[in-house]
């Protein structure tokens, strides 16, 4: 087990190097820092001096890969690649365009992101699984057909609609909760309720339908017939036999996103004005703050890999056949 985990973590290193090289290529090779400067300053007003000044402020005035002017190790370290990309392995993300430390920003913004994403995830999971179980229990009846139809309808609606419609209905029409904003402490619930509700409703269509398919596949298996032949009731078969087996494929898709919950949701956070990592990212994209986008890409992939490892571990918990080796 330990050896296996160690190997997985070792395997994460080349993946992260790959991600790093990819972002480096995207951000510095496809377009040179000069190009970026020209665009940020505005094509019309651009002068060579302005470009140099822009680059100097952000530390983009160095060569890409090899600094022939420097000496010794500086040939490699005093470059854009080393200072902007390689440094991310030490979780040193540098500074955003407005001069703040990206690392500190990430730490402070994780809290609000998690406060929304974590409840959404867990309430959602329980809701989707319950709904899917209900449809499975009443499979091939009118209830099941109506449930599936509802799922297809819900998953055909744009995610933006849930947010805009929810804000309009709950906040503007019924005045139940504030339209947007965020506060810590006791007040937080009234700000969090709507984003969480919308997050859960938004995912119900596709998730429940997917889980239902998994349950139906399990229910066709031989061991279910054995369980019925024992005289177990349909409910007992579903909860004691099918659910536990179905958790294996469900976990594959679900556990992997748990670490990514730190990143928050782009849409929800920006619509509801929640100061999390999601809105941070979207602001950075709109402001074309490349250092922040780069940092978030790296953070995201690191968390994804953590999710993969977590998935493997969770298998050992639900499936006795899996021994990590």
């Amino acid at each position, binding site marked *: 087990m330990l050896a296996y985990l160690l190997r997985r973590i070792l395997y994460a290193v*080349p*993946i992260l190097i*790959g*991600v790093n090289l*990819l*972002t480096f290529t*995207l*951000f510095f090779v*496809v*377009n040179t820092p000069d*190009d*970026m400067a*020209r*665009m940020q300053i505005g*094509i019309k007003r651009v002068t060579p001096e302005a470009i140099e000044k822009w680059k100097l402020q952000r530390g983009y005035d160095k060569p890409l890969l090899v600094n022939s002017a420097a000496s010794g190790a500086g040939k490699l370290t005093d470059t854009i690649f080393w200072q902007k990309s390689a440094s991310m392995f030490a979780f040193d993300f540098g500074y955003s365009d407005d001069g703040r430390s990206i690392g500190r920003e990430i730490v402070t913004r994780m809290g609000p992101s998690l406060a929304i994403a974590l409840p959404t995830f867990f309430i959602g999971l329980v809701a989707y699984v319950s709904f899917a179980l209900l449809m499975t229990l009443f499979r091939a009846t009118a209830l099941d057909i109506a449930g599936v139809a509802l799922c*297809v*309808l819900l*998953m*055909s*609606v*744009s*995610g*933006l*609609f849930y947010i*805009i419609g929810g*804000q*309009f209905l709950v906040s503007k029409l019924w005045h139940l909760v504030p339209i947007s904003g965020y506060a810590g402490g006791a007040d937080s619930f009234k700000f969090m309720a709507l984003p969480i509700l919308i997050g859960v409703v938004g995912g119900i269509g596709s998730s429940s339908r997917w889980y239902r398919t998994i349950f139906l*596949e399990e229910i*066709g298996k031989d061991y279910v017939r054995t369980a019925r032949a024992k005289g177990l009731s349909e409910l007992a078969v579903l909860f004691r036999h099918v659910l536990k087996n179905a958790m294996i494929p469900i976990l594959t898709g679900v556990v992997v996103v748990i670490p*990514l919950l730190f*990143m928050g949701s*782009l*849409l929800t956070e920006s619509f509801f004005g929640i100061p999390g990592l999601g809105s941070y*990212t*979207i602001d950075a*994209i*709109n402001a*074309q703050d*490349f250092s922040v*986008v*780069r940092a*978030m*890409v790296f953070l*995201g*992939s690191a968390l*994804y*890999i953590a999710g993969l490892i977590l998935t493997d571990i969770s298998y050992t918990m639900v499936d006795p056949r899996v021994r990590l080796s």
Partner: protein
Amino acid sequence: MSFMPIILWSDALVFLLLASGIATAWYVRRREHLLLPWRRVAQNATAMVSLLVLSLFLLVGLLDTLHYRAALPETNGGETVYSPEVLSVFDKLVEPLRLQTEKTYSAPFALTLYAKESISDAQGNVLHDYPRLRYGGAHLADVAQRNGDVVKRALTGALGGLLAGLLIALGSRRWLVQHGLPLRPMLIATLLLAALIGATAHLAAAYHVLGTDKVGQDVLYLSLKSIRTGLIIGTVTTLVMLPLALFLGVAAGYFRGWVDDVIQYLYTVLSSIPSVLLIAAAVLMMQVTIDTHPHWFDNSAARADLRLVFLCLILGVTSWTGLCRLLRGETLKLRELEYIQAAQSFGVSSLRILTRHIMPNVMHIILIALVMDFSALVLAEAVLSYVGVGVDPSMISFGTMINAARLEMGREPMVWWALTAAFGFMLVLVLAANLFADAVRDAFDPRLNRTEAVA
């Protein structure tokens, strides 16, 4: 010539897709075992009605893809001069909708603008009131006549549409029966759609059926124009994604060893980056490239179009990993099957085994993935445009429509029609696509065809 045909990059790709679609259909038609699952789709009433709706969208999209530049009246020393504006056949068909723009917002079927303005009447008195629209309901002298007129026009339009629909229905009845399609649902759907189109068309001639937007453009026109953008995102992306996923997935599964290692590494790297971020990063960089090379494009339409194509490209490059993984898994299973081993024992070359044995047997997975992805991509376009990494702001799309309308959410009274129209059209398109995709999956997925194996 009174016009000059223009083929934008996206047009060319659509034509390519269309051609390959027709070629595939022709190929399948002659092969009974390939046709069999399609027959199952054809017997499914929901699927066929969805297909009917989809084909209407497709028709609008295709008409909107035939681009041209009209000739201007004046000539330059005998040579025809063409307008710089790139129009499509669809634009020409609905010309009144495109040209009859108001000053700013107006609600659906409104006769006046949304906001009060100072207007001077015939006597020269200045009033602060809602001004009448230039086109919407301009034929009415009295405001009170509106409701009656709307109902009358709707009814006559619907009746006309119904008649046309009846003709179509009668004409296609035999064909439907011959091919075993569900007759009743199809006919009912045809009639309903025909009536709806008839009523809308008749109303749209006199009113802004879905209102107008900030600069006074007709929302119905915008919604219809958005269809093409959505369709292109949903289909051209697959054109990019498909070869990547197919070749890499099948190769990884069949050859295993280091080939598999490299391909797995590649897709783990790509899929480890949250897709929105990867797309955002790529689009930002594309934006820099486009902005720093303005001389590449002769007009704004070409620039917006190229940006759309690049967006599809980026979406394709970031989304092939899922299908690739599926295909790799399936190929791993297939390569252990005995017919592959039989071929290997004849010494059949790997390339031949891949093309003759493996690829035909993973086609159902590809098809299912394609139809399922389509609706996801249409929805994604709106989100990406909101995030600011979608299509060019000058390009009409559901995303840009929603984005523009969202900003007016806070106004009192609310400007609800543009949002509703965009979401409504998108819902119909995606719902039809989803229902159709479901039927295709049911017909093609071997695991779901259990009922036939009973006994």
